[in-house]
């Protein structure tokens, strides 16, 4: 079809270095990959072209090591309108409306400059969503940090929270949920994953395409500076010990310009003035230009001397690879170019036409007319070499997983048990996240029906009476000890959280945070976790609509826990059926649904109380997980449950405490006998603090229990009444495995609420 795909000769630009094998290595390309480049071009690349290949064939853009694994994930269902491959995935939520959503990591930038790293991460994911034509309605942040006992971790955590907050707050998108996990494994390499959700009329859906020969290509937004050059390559390398040697220029976020871009983009899309639009994210102009061309099988011809720049004397290499924030690439219809300019001007935004769409399949870049890059688009974008590697489980993990845990299964006294519960409620990973989310605007846009603090956030949709329920989840410790289980748990826990609110889980986005995939033990984690994720998604019919891969999360050879994070989106078709997480009324019956097994491996209990990361994580029965979700959704539809709370970190004792602490009229007492809960024979530790999957704490009105039980049986899930909700300010009493504890609800609340503020009081926003 296309006659000639080989690139024409391109003269070496004065001032550019010669291509040496050293330079090739420095660009993160192997000799074999370089051979392939020679083959594609039919000649030696120029320095600028080498930079382009290096960025596009980095892990971040090219998914070298993950693409074959990702290809195994389910991506289709009746609800999916746009699967992976676009700026964001899109699902159909009825009445002509769609929901666009995606998650992205900004781990490495945040490890160096936490405030700006997190801010620019939020900016990027917002652009991914509004470039689909969707108005962002919510942000979620999944955070993993080292122990808060470390000043460095506190500094990073504080900076990231302020960065996420300030950016979203300024743009006017509420941050309504997320997670925050603290473990020494993340000390030097924290994980900052941000998810954005947007809504759009489906007829307005627009894709990142460069179609129509001759159509103008426009660069819009902030001017291009030297910041973040080689960010994409950098994100694909390990941090050095100091975290600074290969430090690129730090990028600074400008949420004000982002807000203008958001409004202007949506106006342009609404007025149907565009052919395609894409964020200039990782690898900047290079990736946006080439990916847009690749999606429509076209070519693109741009002149970088037309690009508005912030600094003098920038080379084509720098302009192509700059990751300056708040920029976008638009392709317009020629007859609309003027109208596009008018809209942008109204929003005080700069726009420059820097080239046009061609049909020769080439990514051609000029500098003042002189060609400096000519690369066939398809091989550059779609034919990045991929690798399927051999994975091997690390022997030390095997040893840890099979460790004998019998000495941790019992307690010596009621007091020890109560102290254990207190320690868990005070553990930053479990404790209240209020300190975080009160720094976020959670109510702007007036769609927040349920903000942070519940199992899932619930947001009103423009459709009649519908709402969206969203949760992000992941468990690095589980994944470390058993990656397949970890992949499954991320999905089933997120689904459970969504279903607890009464919504049916629909689809997921995922962020894979792993170490260096060239290590067989890391590759093993990655491939197993993806396999587990895929199995769970298939079982729950919640396909993957997109996501992000962040590899090389390690410092000095120490990888973080392999951490797949799932962002699950569910649909609530009737607002009346919404279910809160916490206890509602004194006298309500308390039920436990799902089976408690002899599972204390990999728990927060072992980690927080015994400093031990060991054992087999709880087994996921995918069938059970699916039945539980169906049961929860039906129970909500039938208005049988008054509250539903997922049982996860810290087990039943913590789940019950959380229901009490969040009580509708303040901390609420209760009386529960854990021995009544459905269980296979278990030890005290497993009964109180084990993290068996597919369990939920429910309440119903006194007397509705039989209906609840009937429904549970119908869905094949086991349920038992374990106690009664007490009054506000009363005592919480739990018995189980011959132990008994009793403590005022207010006391539990104080422990739970003060854990983060107590550790963070010293840290304040001094440097911004």
């Amino acid at each position, binding site marked *: 079809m296309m006659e000639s795909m080989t690139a024409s000769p391109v003269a070496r630009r004065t001032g550019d270095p010669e291509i040496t094998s050293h330079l090739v290595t420095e660009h993160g390309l192997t000799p074999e990959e370089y051979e392939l480049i020679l083959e594609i071009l039919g000649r030696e690349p120029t320095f600028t072209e080498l930079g382009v290949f290096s960025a596009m064939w980095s892990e971040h853009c090219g998914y070298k090591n993950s693409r074959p694994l990702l290809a195994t994930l389910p991506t289709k269902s009746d609800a999916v309108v746009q699967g992976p491959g676009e700026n964001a995935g899109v699902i159909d939520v009825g009445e002509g409306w769609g929901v666009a959503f995606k998650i992205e990591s900004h781990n490495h930038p945040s490890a160096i*400059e936490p405030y700006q790293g997190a801010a620019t991460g939020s900016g990027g994911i917002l652009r991914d969503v509004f470039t689909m034509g969707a108005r962002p309605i919510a942000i979620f942040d999944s955070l993993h940090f080292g122990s808060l006992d470390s000043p460095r971790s506190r500094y990073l955590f504080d900076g990231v929270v302020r960065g996420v907050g300030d950016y979203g707050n300024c743009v006017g998108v509420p941050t309504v949920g997320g997670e925050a996990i603290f473990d020494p494994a993340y000390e030097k390499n924290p994980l900052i994953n941000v998810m954005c959700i947007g809504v759009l009329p489906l007829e307005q859906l627009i894709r990142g395409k460069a179609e129509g020969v001759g159509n103008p290509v426009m660069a819009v937004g*902030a001017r291009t500076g030297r*910041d973040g050059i080689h960010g994409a390559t950098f994100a694909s390398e390990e941090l050095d010990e100091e975290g600074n040697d290969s430090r690129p220029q*730090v990028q*600074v976020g400008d949420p004000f310009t982002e807000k203008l871009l958001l409004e202007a983009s949506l106006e342009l899309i609404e007025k149907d003035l565009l052919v395609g639009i894409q964020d200039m994210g990782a690898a900047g102009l290079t990736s946006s230009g080439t990916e847009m061309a690749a999606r429509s099988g076209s070519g693109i011809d741009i002149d970088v001397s037309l690009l508005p720049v*912030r600094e003098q004397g920038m080379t084509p290499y720098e302009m192509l690879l700059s990751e*300056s924030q708040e920029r976008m690439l638009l392709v317009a219809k020629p007859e609309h170019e003027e109208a596009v300019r008018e809209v942008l001007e109204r929003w005080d935004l700069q726009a420059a036409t820097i080239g046009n769409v061609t049909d020769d399949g080439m990514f051609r870049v000029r500098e003042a007319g002189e060609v400096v890059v000519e690369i066939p688009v398809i091989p550059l974008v779609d034919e990045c070499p991929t690798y399927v590697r051999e994975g091997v489980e690390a022997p030390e993990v095997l040893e840890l997983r099979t460790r004998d845990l019998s000495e941790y299964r019992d307690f010596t006294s009621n007091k020890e048990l109560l102290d254990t519960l207190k320690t868990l409620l005070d553990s930053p990973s479990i404790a209240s996240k209020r300190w975080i989310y009160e720094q976020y605007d959670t109510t702007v846009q007036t769609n927040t029906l349920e903000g942070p603090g519940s199992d899932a956030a619930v947001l009103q949709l423009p459709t009649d009476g519908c709402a969206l329920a969203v949760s992000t989840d992941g468990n690095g410790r589980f994944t470390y000890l058993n990656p397949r289980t970890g992949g499954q748990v991320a999905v089933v826990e997120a689904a459970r959280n969504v279903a607890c609110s009464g919504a049916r889980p629909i689809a997921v986005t995922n962020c894979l945070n792993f170490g260096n995939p060239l290590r067989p033990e890391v590759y093993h984690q990655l491939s197993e976790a993806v396999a587990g994720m895929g199995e769970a998604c298939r079982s729950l019919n919640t396909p993957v609509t997109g996501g992000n891969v962040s590899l090389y999360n390690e410092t000095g050879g120490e990888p973080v826990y392999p951490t797949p994070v799932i962002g699950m989106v569910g649909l609530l078709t009737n607002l009346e059926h919404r279910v809160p997480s916490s206890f509602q009324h004194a006298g309500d019956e308390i039920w436990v649904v799902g089976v408690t097994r002899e599972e204390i491996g990999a728990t927060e209990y072992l980690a927080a109380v015994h400093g031990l990361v060991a054992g087999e994580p709880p087994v996921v029965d995918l069938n059970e997980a699916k039945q539980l979700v169906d049961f929860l959704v039906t129970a909500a539809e039938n208005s049988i449950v008054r509250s539903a709370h997922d049982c996860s970190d810290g087990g039943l004792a913590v789940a019950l405490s959380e229901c009490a602490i969040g009580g509708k009229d303040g901390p609420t007492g209760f009386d529960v006998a854990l021995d009544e809960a459905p269980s296979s024979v278990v030890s005290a530790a497993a009964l109180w603090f084990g993290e068996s999957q597919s369990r939920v704490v429910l309440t119903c009105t006194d007397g509705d229990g039989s209906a609840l039980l009937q429904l549970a049986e119908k869905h094949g899930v086991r349920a038992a009444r374990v106690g009664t909700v007490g009054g506000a300010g009363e005592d919480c009493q739990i018995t189980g495995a011959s132990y008994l504890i009793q403590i005022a609800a207010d006391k539990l609340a104080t422990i739970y609420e003060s854990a983060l503020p107590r550790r963070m009081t010293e840290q304040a926003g001094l*440097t911004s």
Partner: protein
Amino acid sequence: MTENYLADVQITPRAGILDPVGETIASALGNLGYEDVRSVRAGRLIRLEIAAETAQDAQTAVESMCEELIANPIIEDYLVTVRDVEK
């Protein structure tokens, strides 16, 4: 014997680092008719009163505070100037 010194720390965004605040001020000034403004950079000013034996000691102490806490050397430059407290 120690004396009191006043130390001014001028903190400005490092060259090449985006300065959205400065740019926004520049354009606002332009809109107000101040057309002779070529550029604006927005930074911070921290003024400390510190007891030290000599001005040089005060200078050294404040510079170390900057490295440790006051400035963010990854994105900011800082300049410390010390003078006697006027009585």
